[in-house]
């Protein structure tokens, strides 16, 4: 109820922001701000309706033995008997001042837990993007070089199969194969961060980054292929050909450079996805990243941890998408003119 009111209020707000700041980036930023408000409401509501509230979560089966007075005192302590709106505002106020809550199990603040887990996830995402681009861009170039011919069909079929293999299955098969055949499994040891032990860290990151890289390569391949085919028929490429530009120079400077613009956008979208979507792979390879923090919170019924971490992921997702949009405008002058 409160949510709907806030939404429409925020909606008219963004409309006004859009009217004042005609600049498309300002309008996109206003839209993102509005989305973030909605995200915070959804995250809040989602984990307040969990069956078994925070009291049962904190006290387990012992919660059933509590006297009504004790229950009331606890409800007051957790603030669950206050109206939903004031609970939400209190939580939001805390979040905005950096108070993301405390884990009851580890006694660590969610902020410090996130400060530890986020760099691991970002490292994994960067490595996965590098691998995804390394597989997808050459694959797309190869496919576009002879559209409709054997190499195009093979690379399209490969990317369709890669798209159809779930990352957890690929991870399970690859890790079991490595353990059973050559007995190499660096993730079996305790996780080391990049600064603690760079050599071991990179070994531990290799397989998860490869699995994620393979799973994001197909959309990058498709985007590269489509972009090259579009750019190839542009007037300026024909002009360059007419001027006598050919071979590598034409392919790289005139075609590839322009075709990479949508690839940058696609990579940005995939990077945002990897920040939160890597949770299965993080779980399998025991990488203490931000996705695993959510899963651990769910297992331990630590809803404050889950709530704040999900919010952090969604905020990053929105910001990365906004940033991608801005970068897109910077690298493609045509968008700025429109």
């Amino acid at each position, binding site marked *: 109820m409160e949510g709907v009111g806030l*939404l*429409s209020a*925020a*909606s008219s707000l963004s*409309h006004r922001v859009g009217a004042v700041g005609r600049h498309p980036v300002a309008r996109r930023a206003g*839209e993102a701000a*509005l*989305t*973030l408000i*909605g*995200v915070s*409401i*959804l*995250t809040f509501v*989602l*984990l307040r*309706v*969990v*069956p078994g509230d925070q009291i049962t979560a904190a006290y387990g089966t012992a919660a059933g033995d509590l006297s009504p007075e004790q229950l009331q005192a606890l409800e007051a302590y957790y603030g669950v008997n206050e109206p939903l709106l004031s609970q939400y505002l209190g939580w939001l106020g805390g979040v905005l001042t950096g108070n993301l809550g405390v884990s009851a199990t580890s006694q660590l603040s969610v902020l410090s837990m996130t400060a530890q887990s986020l760099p691991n996830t970002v490292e994994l995402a960067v490595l996965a993007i590098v691998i995804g681009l390394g597989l997808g861009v050459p694959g797309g170039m190869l496919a576009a070089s002879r*559209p*409709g011919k054997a190499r195009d069909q093979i690379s399209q079929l490969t990317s*369709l*199969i890669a*798209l*159809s*293999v*779930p*990352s*957890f*299955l690929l991870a*399970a*098969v690859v890790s*079991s194969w490595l*353990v*059973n055949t050559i007995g190499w499994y660096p993730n079996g040891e305790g996780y080391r961060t990049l600064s603690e032990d760079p050599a071991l860290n990179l070994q531990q990151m290799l397989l998860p980054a490869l699995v994620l890289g393979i799973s994001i390569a197909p959309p990058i391949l498709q985007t590269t292929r489509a972009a090259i*085919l579009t750019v190839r028929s542009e007037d300026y490429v024909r002009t360059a050909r007419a001027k006598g530009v050919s071979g590598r120079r034409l392919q790289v400077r005139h075609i590839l450079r322009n075709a990479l613009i949508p690839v940058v956008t696609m990579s940005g979208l995939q990077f*945002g*996805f990897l*920040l*939160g*979507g890597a*949770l*299965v792979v993080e*779980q399998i390879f025991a990488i203490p990243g931000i*996705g695993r923090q*959510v*899963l651990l919170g*769910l*297992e331990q019924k630590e809803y404050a941890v*889950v709530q704040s971490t*999900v919010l952090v*992921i*969604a905020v990053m*997702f*929105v910001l990365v998408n906004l940033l991608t949009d801005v970068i897109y405008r910077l690298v493609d002058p045509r968008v700025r003119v429109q």
Partner: protein
Amino acid sequence: MSAAADMHEVPQVPTTRASGRWVKAFRTPSGIVGLVLMAVVTVLALLAAAGVGQDPAAQNVSEALQGPSASHWLGTDQFGRDIFARVCSGLANSLRVALVSVTVAAIGGVLLGILAGYYQGILDRVVGVITNVLFAFPSLLLALALAATLRRSWLTVAIAIAVVYLPIFARVARGPVLTLRHAEYVLAATAVGRSRLSTLFEHVLPNILGILVVQITLSLSWAILTEAALSFLGFGTPPPAASLGGMVYAAQSLTSVAPWMLYAPGAALILAVVGLNLLGDGLRAALDPRGANQ
């Protein structure tokens, strides 16, 4: 009256052409392979759902962890349960969750998208905000948070997945409606006195059917993958019901003694998803006008 009847005859022409395109979809190589794969998967799932063959839940510890044989085509798991029966029953579960979630997402999303695109104004803006908010979460994370919030059953998993895919359908439906609402035959239908709403569903819906069918096929494959990932993480279809993701999870620690426990559900999962993706590919080539030029 006769004028109104004539108006109604007009859209019949593209319908017959469209049905020709449907047949064309199943003539492309990917369409045929996809159709065959999905037929196999569906038959196996239906047989399992009908209770044909071995009981997927029957335990027999004396036959635990046996390799493929004549009596157990794909071997047995750590409780001596027949893996072939469990794979078929897992496929049935995947299809059930995927069909329910995509049906809910498609009906809800298309309804919201059409209404938002047609009436615009505040409704459009509210739908836009909701769509943006749902898109702000990585899809697996949102499905996970929703599934963990609801009581665990295959139906709640389906609903969680439906919420994640609903905004995609809203967006797919809204775009074409924005241009179609000014199309002459829509204006004509309104002019002869049809109510706006019935015009909407009689003339606008058939026009976006092609895009929708492609989107539904692809969404079914994503829904199967999402359900499998949720079950793998322990937040999907609850045991003892067989789920492909749960079977892969159980197989992980036993790969050195019983690799078939990993490969059988994994292969079934890939076959179902590849089948749907190929089918979607074939449909897109036939139904999407942009795809026809390539």
